[in-house]
């Protein structure tokens, strides 16, 4: 039996969304299985399935037109809203923790002040905040999944706090110059605010990102 997903992806082109590919592939699969159940051989069943579409380019254009108006709305629901929810939720939790004076843990990697440089390589970890990130990561991925988000949408939505901080840090680095201390500060800041929070978010989001089907939105 042909790989219907692959066939549809090839014929419709790479811009076709995963949910459409899955849906059309399952339709062709049922046409094929119905033909087989009626006693047709493999080749004849494949031929019957292929008769479902006479011109793939026309179909691709029709689907694009039918779905086109929805694109921004879908993008907002599958990526921007879950990403915003994850970002606001995690930032709000951090702000609340700081407001209630929950202290971060300080890690000193190297104390340059002993050598007269007056600077130490250190970073803070807010363990209590990191512990909440898997929940926000999972919720971002879940909201994206529910809105038919692709695995990339789910991944990006769950990592939105880290991606946002990384963007801000890159802008600051680009504006602020490029001496060694700034590069070291950027590297430590990346570990502190991007890599470790990103890993924490991914821990929660991972099972939802790697769901086998690109869209599996359940009834609300």
């Amino acid at each position: 039996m042909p790989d219907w997903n692959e066939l549809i992806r090839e014929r419709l082109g790479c811009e076709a969304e995963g949910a459409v590919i899955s849906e059309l592939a399952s339709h062709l699969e049922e046409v094929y299985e119905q033909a087989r159940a009626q006693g047709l051989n493999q080749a004849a069943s494949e031929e019957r399935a292929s008769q479902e579409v006479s011109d793939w380019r026309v179909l691709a254009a029709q689907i694009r037109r039918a779905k086109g108006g929805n694109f921004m709305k879908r993008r907002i629901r599958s990526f921007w809203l879950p990403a915003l929810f994850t970002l606001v939720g995690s930032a709000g939790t951090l702000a609340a923790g700081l407001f209630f004076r929950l202290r971060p843990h300080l890690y000193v990697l190297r104390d340059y002040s002993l050598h007269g440089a007056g600077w130490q390589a250190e970073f803070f970890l807010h363990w209590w905040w990191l512990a909440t990130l898997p929940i926000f990561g999972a919720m971002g991925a879940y909201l994206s999944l529910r809105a038919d988000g692709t695995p990339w949408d789910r991944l990006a939505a769950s990592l939105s706090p880290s991606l946002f901080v990384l963007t801000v840090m890159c802008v600051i680095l680009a504006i602020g110059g490029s001496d060694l201390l700034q590069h070291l500060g950027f590297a430590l800041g990346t570990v502190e605010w991007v890599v470790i929070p990103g890993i924490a978010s991914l821990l929660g989001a991972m099972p939802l990102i790697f769901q086998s089907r690109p869209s599996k939105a359940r009834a609300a």
Partner: protein
Amino acid sequence: MTKRIRSKIARGSGELAILSLVAEQPLYGFEIAKQIDERTNGALKFTLASLYPLLYEMEKRGWLEGRWQSNEAGRDRRYYHLTTAGRKQLVPLRQEWRAFFQALDSLAGVSNA
């Protein structure tokens, strides 16, 4: 009859057929095509190419809502549910088609043909 009018009639009848079926129970694409074929004794046929653009268009208008659900065999299918807007649309659509067939009947006597 021009091609444009024929296409409009086919589209309108397809919309009515789909809304009427989905009003009874949520169905997925293949099942919609199969039921239309069976219940019209093959007079109306939907292929993948004619069905899904129409379903997506109706979904965009807010008449249908597609949701992924697993059936008893554990296979994921996108079931189309009739929305409130779709239910409201069904009434005037039925009236339009009834009026259309009555007009055609009075003109050409199609019901006695």
